[in-house]
């Protein structure tokens, strides 16, 4: 028996690698937020950029105490969307067109000193939730996670998911019963030939090659803004791209006829960004915003916001359904 075979056998017999979710009912989460008097969406706190483990101890203690109380609370007032999910990012309007915004980003990408070689790695920090869609009584579970994929040309690799620290997103709170930051959530290991990426190689750093790839992964004939954004997500979920490749991806976004500029903002880690958005043609209840650094021109993240209430997700309109951030190595390594 080879080492790999033995490791695989042991892995298959190890029940401890996938922990059970620890859900907090939405009603309880909602009521706790109301009791602790979280500010309304328009009165957001100043960003706490570059600070990790940002949940104040007093608030955490309040939540812990109040959790014991909320079970008996009835007839809570209807919650606002922002009481359930992170506050939407606040955008400062800009007069630039999509083309101008992306041209500026591409100018920054063209400057020396950026990323010059692609890497089979995707490190992301995201806020997500989980819903059991066919059980109205099932709790929706909020998760904040690091996802670190490393893979090799021989299709071996590993995906490590760990519980992540708080970001500076107002309302970016997960249940107190969630694993503490740094806790291993899951670990998937692939032996040679086992990992199946969408793209074995990165497309050439040309707009046409990127557009072809986006058509492949999204199934779109005519690429709209949301297709380009989803395509960028899929690419960044497998690869760390060079600046030239990201520039080519942005060309595809720029060419989308329905792309709009939401404005400038700071992302969940306090990084200055400009957002370009689109609405998926088949799923018009979502709006996807691509966050582009106004410092480096690189793609920083994606925000998914509900335009309408979604009963499957048990979330009201204007909720942030998820966000995902890239170029976060420095945060993962504790350097920021």
């Amino acid at each position, binding site marked *: *028996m080879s080492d790999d*075979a*033995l490791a695989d*056998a*042991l892995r*298959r*017999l190890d*029940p401890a690698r*996938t922990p*059970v*979710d620890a859900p907090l009912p939405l009603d309880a989460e909602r009521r706790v937020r109301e009791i602790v008097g979280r500010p309304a969406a328009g009165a957001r706190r100043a960003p706490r950029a570059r600070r990790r483990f940002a949940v104040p101890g007093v608030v955490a203690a309040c939540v812990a105490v109040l959790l014991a109380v909320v079970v008996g609370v009835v007839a809570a007032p209807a919650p606002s969307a922002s009481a359930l999910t992170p506050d939407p990012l606040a955008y400062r309007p800009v007069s630039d067109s999509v083309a101008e915004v992306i041209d500026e980003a591409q100018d920054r990408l063209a400057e020396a000193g950026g990323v010059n070689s692609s890497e089979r790695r995707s490190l*992301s920090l*995201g806020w*997500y*939730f*989980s*819903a*059991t*869609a*066919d*059980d109205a009584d099932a709790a929706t579970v909020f998760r904040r*996670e690091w*996802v670190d*994929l490393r893979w090799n040309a021989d299709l071996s690799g590993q*995906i490590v*998911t760990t519980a992540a620290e708080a970001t500076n997103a107002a309302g970016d709170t997960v249940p107190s019963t969630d694993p503490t930051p740094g806790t291993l*959530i*899951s670990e*998937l290991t692939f032996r040679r030939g086992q990992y*199946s*990426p*969408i793209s074995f190689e990165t497309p050439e750093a040309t707009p046409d090659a990127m557009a072809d790839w986006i058509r*492949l*992964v*999204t*199934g*779109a004939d005519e690429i709209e803004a*949301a297709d380009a954004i*989803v395509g960028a*997500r*899929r690419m960044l*979920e*497998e690869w760390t791209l060079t600046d030239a490749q990201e520039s080519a991806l942005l060309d595809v976004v720029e060419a989308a006829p329905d792309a709009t500029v939401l404005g400038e903002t700071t992302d969940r880690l306090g990084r200055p960004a400009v957002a370009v958005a689109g609405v*998926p043609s*088949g*799923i018009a*209840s*979502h709006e*996807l915003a691509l966050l582009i650094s106004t410092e480096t021109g690189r793609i920083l993240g994606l925000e*998914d916001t509900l335009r309408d209430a*979604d009963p*499957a*997700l048990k979330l009201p309109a204007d909720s942030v*359904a*998820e966000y*995902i951030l890239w170029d976060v190595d420095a945060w993962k390594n504790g350097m920021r």
Partner: protein
Amino acid sequence: MTDDTTPSNLHPDVAYALREVPGGFAIDSHHAEWPELGMVLEVPEHDKRGEHDRAVGSCATGAICAFSGSNLSGTRLSWSSCGTYSTSGLSSVGSIANARSAGYLQARTSSGSVVATAIAGSWSNTSGAVTNVRCVS
């Protein structure tokens, strides 16, 4: 009284490990020990039915799941029973998982085209405009 260490009573995973790793012996149907290696194996309790269903990533045992991200990442929709379900709660579907013990799960477009399939106990990344998943038991 039956002896649950006889080969026919061993859990398949225990039997496999004993066959492949020399020096071990069965403690009972779900436990084995290799004294010289200092190694003990314990098959999870939920597998005592003899079934091989287990969680797939964060997709719980017995469920089917769709994820907004590739590689079982991102927002997760799950269903506890087999059927055909809309994934409109997700802005896009990047991967699917099938944590049931039998059957398969398809990711499909609005026209019914299958773009990815996950057999029992497995997962798959998707491509294309997935609008629904179909579980076949």
